[in-house]
């Protein structure tokens, strides 16, 4: 069965520092991968997605992610974090047969000023 693992429950970084959030997936076929962000009390906003092609994908708000098939990973990165990036981040994999997304448990990002 497909699954998504986000090993880090909480991460704290200083404003201006770089960020990397880890995501590992388990899925038999070619995965379609997503990163979503959720601010407190809000729904999910799509940051970026990977379907095929270039393994380094760019998203909104200066985020990027790299797909590494050999490591079954899709880590999210940002060169310089802003205080407004504090939120919860979810990695998800699309599973065929019904537009179903399987999510990880999320990583809570705290930004220190």
């Amino acid at each position, binding site marked *: 069965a497909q699954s*998504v693992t986000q090993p880090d429950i909480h991460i704290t970084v200083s404003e201006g520092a770089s960020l990397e959030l880890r995501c590992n997936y388990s899925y038999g076929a070619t995965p*379609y991968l997503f990163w*979503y962000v959720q601010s407190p*009390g*809000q*729904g*999910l*906003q*799509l940051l970026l*997605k990977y*379907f095929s092609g270039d393994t380094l994908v760019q998203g909104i708000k200066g985020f990027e992610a790299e797909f590494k098939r050999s490591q079954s990973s899709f880590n999210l990165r940002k060169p310089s974090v802003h205080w407004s990036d504090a939120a919860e981040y*979810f990695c*998800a994999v*699309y599973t065929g*047969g*019904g*537009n*179903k*997304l*399987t*999510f*990880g*448990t*999320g990583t809570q990002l705290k930004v220190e000023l």
Partner: protein
Amino acid sequence: DAGVTQSPTHLIKTRGQQVTLRCSPKSGHDTVSWYQQALGQGPQFIFQYYEEEERQRGNFPDRFSGHQFPNYSSELNVNALLLGDSALYLCASSLLGSYEQYFGPGTRLTVT
């Protein structure tokens, strides 16, 4: 262009009661999915509707049911509420066959 909207924003119910949550999809979208997000967890897929039919269902009991209307809007119904049903319920819309889902702000359900 209106995005996905959900109502109500918050809801408090008592154990054993029934609740109905509503969702209007993004303009042009024909498919609606529902997710349950318990506190501290990622969203869990409940079911998906297309052409007023349930297309796929996650691991949720029959107490959870839904409906889709001809205008593509949708309702999620939960009967015989349990304390464990307390969660944020998210609606997502998409075009059938598209991999991208657009989420609404959610309905926070508290069962006491």
